[in-house]
């Protein structure tokens, strides 16, 4: 079957088997390997992307379900800079400033869930942020700097 959707602001198309997972399509066909496969069972959140502006686990979504919708991956989060580089999103900059990553494996998923929280939470309430990160596992940081990075971005948003 054929699917077509918006991927990081550009229209893409692909011929797929109906059982193809969205994460498989993103990584295998489009080379967007920033979306990680940690557990492949929907537990770890490393494969989190946005579907129509909401964080979802791309290992628990069929590529066919994305047809006609908007997909955002970690590669589409930073804006293009003037000198060909990238201007980090404020949340990515906050992750860097707060040392919110160590090995980096969970980081793309953390940023994508964090962006959802930055968009939908009213205030930088720590309990709400931690509740929102329930679906993302990190084995390095102990979560505190990640929570702080999201809270900082929420405060800056005002």
């Amino acid at each position, binding site marked *: *079957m054929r699917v077509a959707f918006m991927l990081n602001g550009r229209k893409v198309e692909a011929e797929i*088997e*109906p*059982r193809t997972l969205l994460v498989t399509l993103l990584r295998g066909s489009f080379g967007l390997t920033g979306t990680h496969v940690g557990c*492949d*069972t*929907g537990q770890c*959140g490393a494969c*989190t992307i946005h*579907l129509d502006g*909401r*964080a*979802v*686990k791309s290992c*628990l*979504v*069929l590529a*066919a*379900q994305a*047809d006609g919708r908007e997909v955002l991956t970690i590669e589409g989060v930073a804006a293009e800079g003037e000198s060909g580089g990238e201007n980090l999103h404020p949340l990515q900059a906050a992750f860097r400033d707060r040392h919110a990553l160590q090995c980096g494996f969970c980081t793309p998923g953390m940023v994508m*869930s964090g962006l*959802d*929280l930055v968009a939908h939470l009213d205030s930088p309430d720590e309990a709400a942020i931690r509740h*929102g*990160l*329930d*679906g*993302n596992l990190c084995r390095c940081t102990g979560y505190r700097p990640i929570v702080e990075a999201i809270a900082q971005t929420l405060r800056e948003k005002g």
Partner: protein
Amino acid sequence: MFPFDYIRPQSLAEAVAAHDGLERRYLAGGQSLLAALKLRLAQPTALIDVARLPELSGIDIEPGRLVVGAATTHAILAECREIAALAQLAGSIGDLQVRNMGTLGGALANADPAGDHAAGVLGLGADIHTDRRVIAADDFFLGMFETALEPGELIVSVSYPRPRRAGYAKVRNPASGYPVAGVFVAETDEGVRVAVTGAASYAFRLTDFETALAQDYSPAALEGLTVPADELSRDLHASAEYRAALIPVLVRRALGQGGEE
């Protein structure tokens, strides 16, 4: 996953016509179904994607009732403050990503013994509207992963009566996030209802607790009431006795949250 065909009908009528009543399955958010397919626990010949059907979308605020489309995600329901206890329940399901994809109708049709929504529909005495009839919540859950839905029958919406007050309390398994036990308590025009999920093969009501709370909607009314452990689940997360001890505690907590609606 075994191979399957993918069908996305444009209307409710098309969706129901596409179901053969045998080997095909409806797909809503897929947060339980796709996980099951990955484990090869099911082998449907086709998935019929109903997540975007207009008939299953949207929340209607009616006098005395809230009618929620079956394809409404837990996240959207959590943001709808019309029935605060229901919003709180929806906001406590799974995790952020599951709530953004998983749907009310999908959760009810799946009928996981630890599903949160089972407590909500049973506790409020909701009506489940399908493509062919209306099923009262009391008649909907028949067993573990078993409902009154006929083969090919599709949930279209759930109509909740607006409670005077209601609350939901649960203890989550820290690993899975599913309730070890969850209790929804509500007072509606029809009376007081107490529904329990996660503690047995399917959600059930505590009628003796309901009778006591109808007299006095407060923890004091529950003095001396217990839950027999005989028919409760026992697994590696909790013994039946533990769940029996937990349920009255959760009833009290749910009462404590029961702000005026």
